């Protein structure tokens, strides 16, 4: 959730470099920042962030890696260059989903090929998923696939439990019932195990993929999975005492790779069965973890398969050169299924970390674009923010304050609302420079999502609410002295930017409510613990980076009452039910409407104070087309090209309120 690793050295470097470059001033340069000469041909030079941990898409977790992986590997779906919604890629069309979004069928293109010319089939996707989830691979992002049935069990080296006499497997529902009360609170309760499979398709195809042996197995009532490791199992018994009686005396059958809910129905049909309905699952499939890897090269070269010369990829580009911390060169893959549409001949990625250095390269025209969060705020204030090549759009992130609603005075809804109304978010965004005002929890990046209005800045209304809550003098006027200011404070994890935000909010409340709330900063790991146990009074900062492109990644935080990332103590069965109903709605637009209603309900209860949505904050030269400031700063490279005709150069940031793309 906190975004960057920063060393004091890096900060020092930056500070001194700024000091120096401040005199020259980037401002005096006109409408665009620095030199503007399009390079010859179709070559893009892009600064991609830290050196990738690995070019193996399943063994790295970060965005610097994702940017390169998106050139080298293709998935069933790809991120839309603007909205980041899933668009079909190796799959011919969007997935066909069953009625409750717990099973997806993808039909693959017949002409999809690896960079060595081998065809890509359904079996390659199955191999990719089994490999990624293998415990020995120790992938850090394997949890992304945990929605898939038995994926978690396999990745955690778990076992099914079988009665040796009858041969019957113990069902998950038996253990669930054992945990009293808890199952009811969880919104994403597993499918009713007895419920028969609904084969009727809600979207897309006319006919479902045929029934198979595996399909029957995967639709049997969900089996119980327990840790294979003795010590871990003992722990699990402690958490759920009834488990022990279910498992004792029975035999353990390890979950195998073949058991996970991914099936090649035929050479070009993939069927994915999920643990529970998840309409956002298709969006996850564009993540690098799900992009197709070459079995042949991996089995032949082991760890070294990602080296140039041995490398085989599935993406629009293939690896030509890799010099760590210097450059990664990728060139057009002639076998790519959509090769005719690929416009660039070559992309040169420069892995680089120093902000000043990369912007120096950008200014002198040695690179054509940089990644997000790269322009220092002092440069922005000096004029870069107004330049036409500055990319300033909202991100898939939300910053807000949790309110501990279990302690007075914040247990009073009127008080919570009053504090919410006493913050000028426009002012906050202007003060932070690289942020947009956040009136709702869900950032305004989902074009089809009808955002609720939210309650904005209204200091007079805030005072009225506080009067209603009893903070008034004898004559009935608002009296801030009556408010127990000592019982609230703003808690945040130690960080310069968080401190600035907290000071701004503190000043707002002092100015508009006459209440001085004290600030408290806590070290990160301690902070997380404190927040989830609600050992704080008043407010606690949270910054949530969306895991996928769907409003549910934000709303879902507040479905668990205890622990987890919900630090408010607020939880409401009605809200959970609204979300659950929305997630079982097959119609996309209807579902989003229902989620928006749930968010409106949530905001009305005010368990959090929304603050701001961070902005993308990066730059690209006007001659680079098809590269958009999308909410995750992940680019589908095949859409990008260099425009040599000056008349067609971008005069401003591309319009992000429509999904339309630039056409060459």
């Amino acid at each position, binding site marked *: *959730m*906190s*975004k960057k*690793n920063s*060393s004091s*050295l*890096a900060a*020092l*470097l930056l500070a*001194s*470099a700024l*000091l*120096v*470059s401040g*005199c*020259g001033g980037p401002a005096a340069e006109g409408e665009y920042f*620095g*030199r503007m000469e399009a390079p010859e041909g179709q070559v893009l030079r892009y600064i991609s962030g*830290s*050196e990738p*941990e*690995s*070019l*193996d898409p399943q*063994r790295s*977790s970060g965005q610097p890696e994702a940017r390169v992986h998106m050139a080298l590997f293709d998935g069933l779906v790809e991120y839309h260059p603007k909205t980041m919604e899933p668009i079909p890629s190796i799959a011919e069309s969007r997935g066909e989903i069953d009625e409750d979004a717990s099973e997806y069928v993808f039909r693959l293109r017949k002409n999809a090929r690896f960079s060595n010319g081998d065809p890509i089939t359904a079996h390659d996707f199955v191999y990719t998923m089994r490999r990624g989830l293998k*415990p*020995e*691979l*120790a*992938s*850090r992002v*394997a*949890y992304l696939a945990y929605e898939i049935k038995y994926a*978690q069990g396999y*990745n*955690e*080296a778990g076992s099914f439990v079988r009665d040796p006499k009858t041969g019957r497997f113990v069902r998950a529902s038996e253990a669930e019932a054992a945990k009293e009360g808890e199952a009811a609170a969880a919104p994403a309760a597993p499918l009713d195990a007895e419920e028969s499979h609904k084969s009727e398709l809600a979207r897309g195809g006319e006919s479902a993929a045929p029934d198979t042996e595996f399909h029957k197995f995967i639709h049997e009532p969900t089996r119980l999975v327990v840790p294979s490791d003795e010590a871990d199992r003992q722990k699990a018994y402690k958490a759920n005492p009834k488990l022990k009686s279910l498992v004792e005396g029975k035999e353990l059958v390890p979950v195998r790779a073949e058991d996970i809910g991914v099936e090649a129905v035929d050479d070009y049909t993939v069927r994915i069965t999920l643990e529970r309905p998840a309409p956002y699952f298709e969006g996850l499939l564009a993540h690098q973890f799900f992009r197709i890897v070459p079995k042949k090269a991996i089995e032949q070269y082991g*760890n*070294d398969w*990602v*080296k140039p010369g041995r490398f085989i990829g599935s993406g629009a580009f293939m690896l030509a050169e890799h*010099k*760590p*911390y*210097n450059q990664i060169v990728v060139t057009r893959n002639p076998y790519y299924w959509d090769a005719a549409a690929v416009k660039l001949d070559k992309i040169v990625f*420069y892995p*680089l*970390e*120093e902000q*000043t*250095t990369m912007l*120096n*390269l950008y*200014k*002198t025209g*040695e690179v054509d674009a940089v990644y997000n969060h790269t322009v220092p705020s002092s440069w922005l204030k000096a004029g870069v923010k107004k330049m036409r090549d500055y990319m300033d759009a909202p991100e898939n992130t939300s910053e807000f304050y949790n309110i501990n609603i279990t302690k007075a005075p914040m247990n009073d809804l009127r008080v919570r609302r009053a504090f919410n109304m006493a913050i000028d978010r426009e002012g906050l965004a202007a003060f932070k420079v690289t942020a947009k005002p956040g009136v709702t929890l869900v950032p305004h990046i989902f074009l089809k999502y009808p955002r609720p209005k939210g309650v904005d800045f209204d200091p007079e209304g805030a005072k009225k609410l506080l009067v209603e809550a009893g903070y008034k003098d004898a004559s009935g006027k608002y009296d801030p002295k009556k408010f127990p200011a000592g019982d609230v404070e703003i808690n945040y994890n130690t960080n310069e930017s968080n401190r600035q935000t907290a000071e701004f909010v503190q000043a707002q409340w002092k100015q508009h409510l006459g209440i001085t709330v004290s600030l408290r900063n806590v070290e990160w*790991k301690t902070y*997380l613990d404190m927040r989830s146990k609600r050992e704080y009074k008043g407010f606690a900062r949270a910054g949530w*980076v969306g895991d996928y492109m769907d409003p549910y990644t934000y709303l879902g935080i507040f479905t668990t009452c205890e622990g987890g990332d919900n630090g408010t103590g607020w939880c409401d069965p009605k809200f959970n039910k609204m979300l659950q109903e929305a997630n079982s709605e097959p119609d996309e637009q209807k579902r989003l409407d229902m989620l928006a209603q749930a968010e409106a309900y949530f905001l009305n209860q005010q368990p959090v104070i929304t603050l701001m949505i961070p902005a993308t904050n990066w730059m690209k030269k006007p001659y680079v087309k098809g590269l958009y400031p999308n909410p995750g700063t992940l680019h589908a490279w095949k859409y990008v090209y260099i425009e040599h005709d000056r008349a067609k150069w971008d005069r401003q940031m591309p319009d992000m309120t429509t999904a339309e793309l630039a056409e060459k």
Partner: protein
Amino acid sequence: MFRFIIRRLLVTVPMVLIVVSLTWALIRTAPGNFYSGEKKLPAAIEKNIRAKYGLDQPWYKQYARVMTNTLRLDFGNSLRYENETVNDILKRTIPVSATIGLLAYLLALAVGVTFGTLAALKPNSKLDYVSMALAMLGISLPNFVLGPLLVLVFALSLYWLPPARWDGFPSWSLVLPVLTLSAVYMAYIARLTRSGMLEVLRSDYIRTARAKGLTEKDVVVRHALRGGLLPVVSFTGPALAFLVTGTVVVERIFAMPGLGNYFINANLNRDEPLILGIVAFISIAVLIANLLVDIAYGFIDPRIRY
């Protein structure tokens, strides 16, 4: 002499082991680990990772492994850059750092010795004041200020030179980092040469040389420099080791893919094998550089015998 060298080389082994042990202990006590990141990992995934890298074994087993690795000079794969071994990384980055470091030192030596000598020959002259003032500036101006200043002038304003990036050797992109790096050394060497030469020029054997009727050039170059440069030689050892093993700040400002850059990141990433490998390499480099300096003394200064 031979026995001296052997003895010194033998001492290197326990020294390196001690340095590596201390570093290992420090890494152990530092909070966080290489897989901890923005979001908390599920327990099972953390377990998979710990098992894969042997972090679930008792500490003495892990320590024993580190010690054998050190003796074999093979630290295995990096934890962060999984597809590379520590030795791959060293082999690739040392030439980069060494190129910049050696060039910077040669430049510093040429300019420093020249101006230091000239200043010593005419003490309190204009040339002396100007070059020593410049040297003072060079010492006081840290490279993280000088580097961006040079970039601002030559790259961002004049567009003469690239502002950063390694482009192989030789290339224009080396000019700014080498200049930045050499400034401090140039200044030190100039001052050391000046004071060394001043002392030597006043000594008896120089007076004798002059009395024999040698030309001023012969006196300075053949007799005085040899003694006057002794302080520079002792400075060279650690300086060279430091330069060749990478200079973090300059490599970061100019985005050079050298060892220094990796050293910072390895620490930030808690990449244990990589940190240990780099530390072992640097300590070996320092020990050997010092040994070479001691040997050089024997040749330069007739008073020193081993």
